[in-house]
């Protein structure tokens, strides 16, 4: 089909442009916008009615004029080229080369919106990924094909943690290496640089695909970035059988871009000004993780998001938590105590760990010990609140033991250096050492046979 340009606009508002409909238009099709100096920008059709076309510009609308702006309709949805050459490349937020190298040469173009995986074709993820971090491996185990976000806040070490996961993540019973797809949305240059250096140090740079929409890029561009990244990830995982680890940081910036467009369109907001479809929109990103029957590859997603004002009930972490298979929550109080990684034990959760741990996968006692650690630590939290009022003297002997357990748990189990890589056995053995502090009858969640086998040994 020939490319037709339409001349002139009706209205420009924020990132949106509205023009007259002069020919049939596809919903969702890509457009090119040219200003009076023929500078090119990309956009997308958002809606069509009887007379007008509403489109959004993935750039700046500053300088566009009503009269001298030309729009070209491309008859195609947003697509990126995929091939093995993606590896080692850096792209901008729209999927265009950012490293000075030419376009990917390929005739295989993929729609960045992807399609939903048929639930019938999914394979249930079960393979344990050892991250070498006790708080994750022991309590919120990461599984290959899982989507497990890091809920963080400003000033918390989520980047260090994400980088450590990338460096140390491995499967226990196979040599498969992870390919990494890294999408940065609205993060600062030095953060992106930190990750790049990390990839370099661990020698995986040639196995990384990067999509960078940094803090100084137009915010609307961020709506494309995670989708382009996941399209590349899907190609690498399901066409080339690779195991892909996708880091998306920071999803909060993505959601804010979405809110910006929604507000410009005058949509009815639901909570905190975010559009009512934020849940479905986030799902269309997160649900692109997983494994597929009959394919060797997998996509594991680690989205990072900063909770505005450390509030976990904010719509972004809240809706994310409803979609993802658990969450790793970073805690400011632990961080202030200088505990790294400051992973808050109680609100963190991995929904897929139930089928990925235990005999043959990690160790037979894993499930019960993690459940016991959780409930003991929860008791510690209760007691600490109590101690704040009545003082430690009033507590029973058992309760005092609990407080000791709490301190040791934070000091020995949670704390480790950003370079320390612990095996799952070491993690679980530390767990037993800690439980040894408590009287045996408190360990009601653990089967007697494990107590006999492991608890005695660790004394």
């Amino acid at each position, binding site marked *: 089909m020939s490319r037709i340009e339409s001349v002139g606009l009706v209205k420009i508002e924020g990132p949106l442009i509205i023009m007259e409909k002069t020919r049939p238009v596809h919903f969702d099709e890509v457009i090119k916008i040219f200003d009076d100096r023929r500078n090119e920008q990309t956009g997308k059709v958002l*809606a069509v009615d009887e007379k007008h076309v509403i489109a959004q510009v993935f750039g700046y609308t500053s300088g566009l004029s009503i009269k001298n702006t030309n729009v070209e309709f491309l008859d195609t949805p947003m697509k990126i080229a995929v091939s093995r050459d993606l590896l080692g490349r850096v792209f901008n937020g729209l999927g265009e080369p950012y490293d000075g190298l030419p376009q990917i040469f390929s005739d295989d173009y993929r729609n960045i919106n992807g399609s939903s995986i048929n639930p019938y074709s999914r394979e249930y993820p079960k393979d344990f990924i050892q991250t070498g971090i006790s708080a994750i491996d022991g309590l919120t185990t990461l599984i290959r094909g899982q989507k497990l976000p890091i809920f963080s806040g400003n000033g918390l070490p989520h980047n260090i943690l994400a980088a450590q996961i990338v460096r140390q993540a491995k499967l226990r019973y196979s040599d498969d290496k992870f390919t990494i797809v890294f999408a940065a949305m609205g993060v600062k240059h030095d953060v992106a640089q930190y990750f790049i250096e990390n990839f370099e140090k661990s020698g995986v740079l040639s196995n990384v695909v990067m999509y960078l929409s940094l803090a100084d890029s137009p915010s609307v561009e961020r709506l494309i970035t995670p989708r382009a990244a996941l399209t590349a990830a899907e190609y690498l995982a399901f066409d080339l059988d690779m195991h892909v680890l996708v880091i998306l940081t920071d999803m909060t910036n993505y959601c804010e871009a979405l809110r910006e467009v929604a507000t410009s369109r005058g949509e009815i907001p639901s909570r905190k000004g975010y559009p009512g479809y934020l849940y479905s929109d986030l799902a269309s990103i997160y*649900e692109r993780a997983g494994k597929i029957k009959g394919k060797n590859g997998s996509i594991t997603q680690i989205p990072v998001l900063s909770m505005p004002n450390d509030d976990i009930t904010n719509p972004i972490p809240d809706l994310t938590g409803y979609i993802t298979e658990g969450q790793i929550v970073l805690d400011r109080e632990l961080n202030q105590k200088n505990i790294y990684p400051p992973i808050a034990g109680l609100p963190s959760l991995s929904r897929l760990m139930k089928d990925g741990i235990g005999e043959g996968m990690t160790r037979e006692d894993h499930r019960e010990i993690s459940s016991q650690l959780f409930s003991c630590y929860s008791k510690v939290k209760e007691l600490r609140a109590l101690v704040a009022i009545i003082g430690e003297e009033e507590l*029973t002997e058992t309760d005092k033991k609990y407080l000791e357990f709490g301190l040791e748990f934070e000091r020995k189990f949670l704390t480790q250096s950003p370079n320390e890589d612990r095996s799952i056995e070491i993690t679980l053995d530390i767990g037993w050492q800690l439980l040894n502090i408590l009287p045996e009858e408190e360990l009601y969640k653990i089967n007697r046979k494990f107590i006999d086998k492991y608890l005695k040994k660790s004394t």
Partner: protein
Amino acid sequence: MINSVKGKIISINGPIIKATGMDEAGMLDVVNVGKNELVGEIIKLDQGIATIQVYEDNSMMETGEEVVSFKRPLSVLLGPGLLEGIYDGLQRPLKDIANMTGCFIQPGVKTYPLDLKKKWHFIPILNKNDKVSQGIKIGYVEETELIRHFIMIPPEVKAAKIKSIVKEGDYTINDTIVVLDNDQEIKMCHYHPVRRSRPYLKKLTLKEPLITGLRIIDMFYPLAKGGTAAIPGGFGTGKTMTQHSLAKWSDADVIVYIGCGERGNEMTDVLNEFPKLIDPKTNQPLMKRTIMIANTSNMPVAAREVSIYTGITLAEYYRDMGYAVAVMADSTSRWAEALRELSGRLEEMPAEEGFPAYLPSRLAEFYERAGLINTFNNEEGSISIIGAVSPPGGDFSEPVTQHTKRFIRCFWALDKNLANARHYPAISWLDSYSEYLNEVMDEWYKIDSDYENIRTEALTILKTEEKLNQIVKLIGPESLPDNQRLILLTAEMLKKGYLQQNSFDEIDMYAVPEKQIYLLKIIIEFYNLSNKAIKKGTPLVKIKELKIIDEINRLKSTISNKEIVKFEEFLNNLRSSFENLLNIYT
């Protein structure tokens, strides 16, 4: 009569499109939209312009493409072969879609809900010249080892006499099996509109409990067969795990599990697990009584709205055969959000938090399709609905939770703090309630006449503990007198040894009513005996030293459902260990 109406697309706004030339199309007609023939439904008509919601991904749809209405409402196909199936929100088998388009779902796939070629062994019940009318059973096929599928006269067929009926033999669902004397042909399958409930003779008062095997539900907050319940809870509190548990162990005949706007992997989990799980009563895989509707969060939002209706219509079909059906809807909040999203695109005036003003009436319509009824065959059938609610931020004051509470009579509130402490099921014993207690009481009395006493006593202990904890927070546990600290101790035992249930433990995952009664009896007996001992001067410290406390806490996973007699032995042990204690201290 016109069979189809054709129009042209003039506007597209996400899944909501408008088409002209639709003067003769009907409201709520199902339409094929565009050159990919996507499924849609007319939701508004205005001077020849139809507003249509499209149930599939309509990216790259072009204005000017054709819209065709077939002058019939959105319907499901009812007939043998539904069980063990996994469907999307429009009753398309996901297995067939996978065979046709691979592992990613492509829009515009055309599949048939039931297997057309499969031959079913039909056995007639009625004879020539028998009088029949809507809902009357004419014969049956054995659909699975668990469920006998009765073929019934479809609703709205006029009363008539049977002119001919086929002999026992193998037929496909499209073969005519009965001809009526008004020459109407009856097949083994028929269509029914999803938004219209199926007719029945009359509604009855509920009387039987739906036994779920979960102690906190059955014993404290029971659901009746034909009742409605809601499970609200923030993320990570275990809504889906509880729903899965209910789908596995509740004593309904047929389970319809609607995964509405939730995770893809959760549906996969059910698909993997259910064929392996064996029903304790029939020794058959649980999948043989289950139908799944999966419309995951990344599938088109409009189909999410319809999936709830698809599920409940299938449930009504089995109810009409005289079965007890349980519908799990996970989650109704996603369905409400789909309503909100579509309403926003229609530019309707929003009510609370952007939800449309008709949200409460839609919720009411849905929950009212539950109930215990008399079928046209004068048998009893029931639908129980258990809806999960996902309140934003875990805040129960939001519109969906609040409106749902108006239409359900059983409320199982999930508590974040319990979930954080890995106390599962994290159903709060303080915030939950059930209005079905009186209805189901008689059935429990048949098992044990003590039912009400021990239940009330246990709840009193738990509620007193809550109050005592307030005091403990101020002055510490050591300052309380022994009898109050005994309440704290017993409440702890109730939580560890009774309310918590380990869904991974083979013995503990499911408890028969007898076991539920005995376990609670033992704890209450312990409390009463200790109370007596304390009055006679035994210090609580000595009671706490008893080995039997730890044994009681572990009892749930040491004595299985089949060893009920052992509980009586245990009760005797308990009594004698207190006698020994009393001998020392009095």
